[in-house]
């Protein structure tokens, strides 16, 4: 046990017996079971399952739920029909990102927001605070719901084997109810890997009664055995999301970086009448950005890591916020913030790794070839 105060999920026994457990955002979670690279490759080639119960789950209900969510988040909530979802951000008054998440519309007047693990308390307090002027209720149901991500090109066919409903009818960013292994599960076609796949919510399942969560987890593992499903840890979750170009809160985005600088303008609807951070973001847009989040693919040997400096023509132009070895590209990749004049695709930059300047190229996300990997692949 890592700490008396550490929290566990329903699957703790599985994780501790089968994997290397680490403390992450206050939870004892698996870093890997067999290894980051085989787990990463399983998701890209066939499928994997992740326990993501450490993330938060907050319900927003009431007559003004849509109005309120449109006010606290940056994307267009009015465009969300029931049983659909979108990626979004929540900003402070300065346009800085309080969190990034997927927002689900369960019903006309009922939304589900899934905050990052490290932001669970902060987000819930912010939502409660902001909701006072609205006819809505914010309820933290995190501890009553287990959540798994089932990701990879074989995810649909495998889940279908144990599903009561036709999962092919649930398109990307849609959601719905089904029974998996006889257990009621809310499923959404979303994820954090760049691959096709689903996220599963096992409701009414507190830690004290983990039975249904364990049942679903084991049923998915068994159903995926013939395609080589692997249970995957946080290590592969991080390398997968980085290859896909997705932000990690606390590394790539935080309250001092705006949604525009992070390259998330596609979820910032400045035409909305009113939302927290709008004025600051409008001002920043009209003045122009000074820095931008970019992808850097290393052209020489070396692995970029957070805080490494990015250089160009003998001048420091930014820094790395996430970096790793890409199992698909078999080279170093990074997310970095660089000054706008050097942020164009194709620009050659240098990353300072242990006092050496190592060449890299600014590339667009995702890092991999989308005809071969990811949900848009041509099978």
């Amino acid at each position: 046990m890592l700490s008396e105060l550490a929290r566990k999920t329903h699957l703790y026994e599985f994780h501790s017996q089968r994997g290397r457990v680490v403390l992450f955002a206050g939870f004892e979670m698996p870093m890997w079971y067999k290894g980051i690279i085989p787990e990463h490759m399983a998701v890209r080639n066939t499928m994997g399952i992740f326990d993501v119960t450490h993330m938060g789950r907050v319900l927003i209900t009431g007559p003004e739920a849509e109005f309120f969510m449109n006010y606290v988040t940056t994307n267009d909530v009015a465009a969300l029909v029931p049983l659909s979802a979108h990626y979004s951000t929540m900003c402070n008054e300065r346009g800085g990102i309080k969190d990034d998440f997927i927002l689900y519309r369960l019903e006309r007047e009922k939304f589900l927001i899934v905050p990052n693990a490290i932001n669970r308390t902060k987000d819930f307090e912010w939502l409660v605070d902001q909701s006072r002027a609205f006819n809505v209720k914010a309820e933290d149901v995190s501890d009553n719901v287990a959540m798994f991500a089932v990701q990879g090109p074989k995810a649909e066919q495998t889940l279908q084997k144990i599903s009561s409903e036709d999962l092919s009818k649930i398109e990307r960013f849609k959601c719905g109810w089904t029974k998996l292994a006889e257990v009621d599960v809310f499923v959404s076609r979303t994820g954090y890997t760049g691959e096709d796949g689903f996220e599963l919510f096992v409701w009414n399942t507190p830690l004290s009664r983990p039975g249904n969560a364990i049942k679903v987890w084991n049923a998915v593992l068994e159903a995926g055995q013939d395609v080589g499903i692997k249970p995957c840890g946080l290590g592969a979750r991080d390398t997968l999301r980085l290859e896909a170009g997705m932000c990690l809160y606390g590394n790539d985005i935080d309250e001092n970086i705006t949604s525009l600088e992070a390259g998330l303008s596609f979820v910032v609807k400045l035409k909305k009448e009113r939302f927290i951070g709008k004025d600051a973001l409008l001002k920043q847009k009209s003045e122009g950005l000074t820095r931008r989040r970019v992808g850097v693919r290393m052209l020489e040997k070396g692995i970029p890591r957070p805080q490494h400096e990015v250089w160009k023509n003998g001048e420091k132009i930014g820094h790395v916020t996430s970096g790793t070895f890409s199992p698909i590209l078999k080279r170093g990749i990074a997310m970095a913030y660089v000054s706008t004049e050097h942020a164009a695709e194709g620009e050659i930059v240098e990353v300072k790794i242990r006092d050496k300047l190592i060449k890299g190229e600014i590339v667009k996300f995702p890092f991999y070839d989308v005809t071969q990997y990811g949900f848009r692949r041509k099978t």
Partner: protein
Amino acid sequence: MMRIQDYEIPDELYYSKEHEWVRIEGEYAVVGITDYAQKALHEIVYVETPPIGSKLKQMESMGVVESVKAVSDIFIPVSGEIVEVNENLAESPELLNKDPYGAGWIAKIRPTNLKTDLKNLMNAPQYAEHIRRLEEK
């Protein structure tokens, strides 16, 4: 060969607290990282070796080894000049995982202070005890 838990500890080598090993081969010393080190790092994806000809003092950094998640210094266990490095590690860093005491060797050194330096290192039983204590923590 000694073994403590899952970790192999060959009898004939010398060991540093930082988990490097030394094998004396005539007038040279061959160095690498131990089985314990490679298992702690797990999937090694990059090794940076020192330039040939570098002269380093015992326990100065001679390079780094990186796994997917972590970066670790490799400390030179005996003072001396680097006369050869394992070129295969550039393309196959996983040799450190597969064969840490053999094909995963890192560098060959011409020692300059071997007798004294060896006194600062551990033999196999001492290193086994060192690991046992680390594992208790």
